[in-house]
């Protein structure tokens, strides 16, 4: 059993009571809500005649359904309009702060909470969205919950939880140029599998992790859930504190010094005990691309689609389903696969450094004929910062569309979607069948720089070759 890890310490600090059935009542320090998984929770609260226990510990934004072309109200889609209006009404009825469209602070929930300084080390963070694991990048214990649990957090500021085991994922070495946190996490999931993390929290540590900037750590923790781990985290360090200092909700003045001291003490100690440990070498990782229908079906861009013989026996049925659905032949190189749509955005890779990496590839080049390529900043703040640097112009000149912030084609609840059998190069996190809005649409996951490279070439290609050559 784990001991002395950040996970153990944060868990112990937030324990409220032992519940019948053996689970623990855990206090939730930060609750994030959005328009998709909250309306039924508020309806249940009303039915039960309950109030919101600590409205100031819940923060709302809109992201999943918002259009990214025109955000003028009312939305063209009446259902989307109804969802947004419902959230606005619920927030005003219960006194919950809402960072709405045009506030300057709206965006994907997992982008705005960190950039506002809401997410801090040592917190428990819950949100009705599985990618809540993102916030673990700060040394928070953050996990996705269902709508009944959203109701529970609203009503009681706590959840009934079972404790997870802790697996340390130790990453040696350094990522090579052109290889990003996205490639690292796709590689980890490829090796450990999409269910390898079930029952675990993942602690990411080691020299390669220490060297990651906060936005890269967010990308990494964001996809812990795709590896089955409900939460993933990185111990807070100087990089974390430098990111947080001065943000709107970060502690100020003497509070800041005390906070940093407290945060430091939460990191897993040298004597921490883990339930399991797995090691990786960052230097050996290539830009990674998924070829199949789960995020675990990834390969290096210089590899070939695995054959059945190269696939573990119990993974073979899924591989066969993936060959059929993706229409990719085992044994053929993934590089050169033609794409139709290129999407840069999402809570995995819609932050400023992601757009910078993609823009560096796009600059001075042009999207291949017939390719639809678009960039959706993760938040209004990301959009403003990118515009201030002229990234929107770089993208537009290269033939990319520049959109308004939101989840967009990550899950295609808004008008951004694949058509028919189209195949996308996408910087998002899920390549499930039908994920991007067409029941037969296909998704290749990769880093934003790799998406930009695919847009330029019209096919999957190794971004390292574009980084090393001038256009």
């Amino acid at each position, binding site marked *: 059993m784990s001991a002395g890890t950040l996970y153990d310490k944060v868990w112990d*600090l937030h*324990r*409220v*009571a032992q*519940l*019948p*059935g*053996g689970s623990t*009542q855990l*206090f939730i*320090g930060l609750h994030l809500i959005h328009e*998709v*998984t909250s*309306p*039924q929770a508020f*309806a249940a609260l009303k039915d039960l005649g*309950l109030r919101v226990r600590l409205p100031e510990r819940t923060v709302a934004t809109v992201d*999943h359904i918002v259009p990214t072309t025109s955000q003028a109200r009312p939305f063209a889609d009446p259902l989307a309009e*109804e*969802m947004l209006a*419902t959230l606005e009404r619920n927030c005003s009825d219960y006194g919950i702060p809402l960072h709405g469209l045009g506030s300057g602070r709206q965006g994907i929930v997992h982008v705005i909470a960190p950039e506002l300084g809401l997410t*801090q080390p*040592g917190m428990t963070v819950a949100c*009705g969205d*599985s990618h*809540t694991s993102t916030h673990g990048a700060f040394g928070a214990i953050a996990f*996705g919950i*269902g*709508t*009944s*649990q959203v*109701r*529970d957090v609203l*009503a*009681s*500021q*706590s*959840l009934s939880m*079972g404790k997870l085991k802790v697996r340390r994922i130790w990453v040696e070495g350094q990522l090579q140029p052109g290889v990003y946190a996205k490639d690292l996490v796709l590689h980890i999931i490829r090796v450990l599998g*999409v*269910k390898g993390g*079930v029952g675990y929290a993942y602690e990411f540590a080691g020299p390669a992790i220490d060297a990651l900037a906060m936005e890269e750590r967010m990308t990494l923790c964001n996809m812990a859930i795709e590896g*089955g781990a*409900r939460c993933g985290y990185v111990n807070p360090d100087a990089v974390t504190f430098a990111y947080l200092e001065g943000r709107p909700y970060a*502690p100020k003045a003497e509070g800041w010094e*005390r*906070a940093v001291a*407290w945060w430091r003490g939460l990191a897993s100690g040298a004597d921490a005990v883990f339930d399991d440990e797995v090691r990786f070498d960052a230097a050996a990782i290539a830009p990674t691309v998924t070829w199949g229908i*789960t995020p675990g079906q990834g390969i290096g861009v210089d590899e070939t689609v695995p054959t059945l013989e190269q696939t573990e026996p*119990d993974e073979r*049925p899924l591989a066969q389903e993936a060959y059929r659905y993706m229409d990719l032949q085992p044994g053929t190189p993934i590089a050169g696969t033609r794409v139709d749509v290129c999407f840069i955005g999402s809570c995995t890779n819609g932050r400023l450094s992601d757009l910078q990496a993609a823009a560096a590839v796009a600059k001075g080049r042009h999207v291949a004929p017939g390719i639809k390529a678009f960039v959706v900043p993760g938040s209004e703040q990301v959009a403003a910062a990118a515009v201030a640097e002229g990234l929107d112009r770089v993208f537009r000149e290269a033939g990319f569309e520049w959109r308004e912030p939101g989840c967009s084609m990550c*899950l*295609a*609840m808004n008008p951004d979607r694949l058509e028919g059998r189209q195949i996308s190069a996408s910087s998002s996190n*899920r390549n*499930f*069948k*039908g*994920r991007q809005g067409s*029941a037969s649409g296909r998704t290749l996951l990769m880093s934003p720089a790799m998406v930009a490279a695919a847009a330029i070439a019209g096919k999957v290609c190794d971004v390292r070759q574009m980084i090393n050559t001038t256009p």
Partner: protein
Amino acid sequence: MTAAMTTSSFPLGPIAAVLGRAVVIAGDDIDTDRIIPARFLKCVTFDGLGEQVFADDRAELSGEHPFDRAELQGASVLVVNRNFGCGSSREHAPQALMRWGIRAVVGESFAEIFYGNCLALGIPCFTASHASVLSLQDQLIADPDQELNLSLATASLEDSRGQLWQLELQAGPQQMLASGQWDATSQLLAHDSELTRTAESLPYINGF
């Protein structure tokens, strides 16, 4: 579909057993996007999700999907393979299954959030070994008319031939379902003074 039609038989109170026929959905890693595609999340109530469960898979199989087969209508047990319900945290997935008629799930393993979401609705998720799930599925496909009896107390499934299948049900959920306390809200509200104490002890709640 009216609310009255659908809500009357939803799980309520202590659950001792789940009775009925079973539907088999074969395959590992069936994700929540397949159980309920994202476009159906555009709703402010869960009513009506039952008709949309597995929508894309059903359209692809035009009438041949287990959830459309005439002989499987009214089934209440779902038998699946590994890592069922992975992906999104959307409670719309178990809600859609429940509104179609599912009251219990048997499988080799489940994604955690999905498992918890089912529990919050009063739907037990039983596990069994790889081999016994496969042979149970084979048997149910061969003879879909069997009336099953899933007992929560013994975590076992009895088929209509009298054969007993040993399953597993985690002790916590078992106790919560059997006692009718699977809906956590009231339990959580019972410890309000402890909750206040916990909040007071946390530096970040109190400005450090």
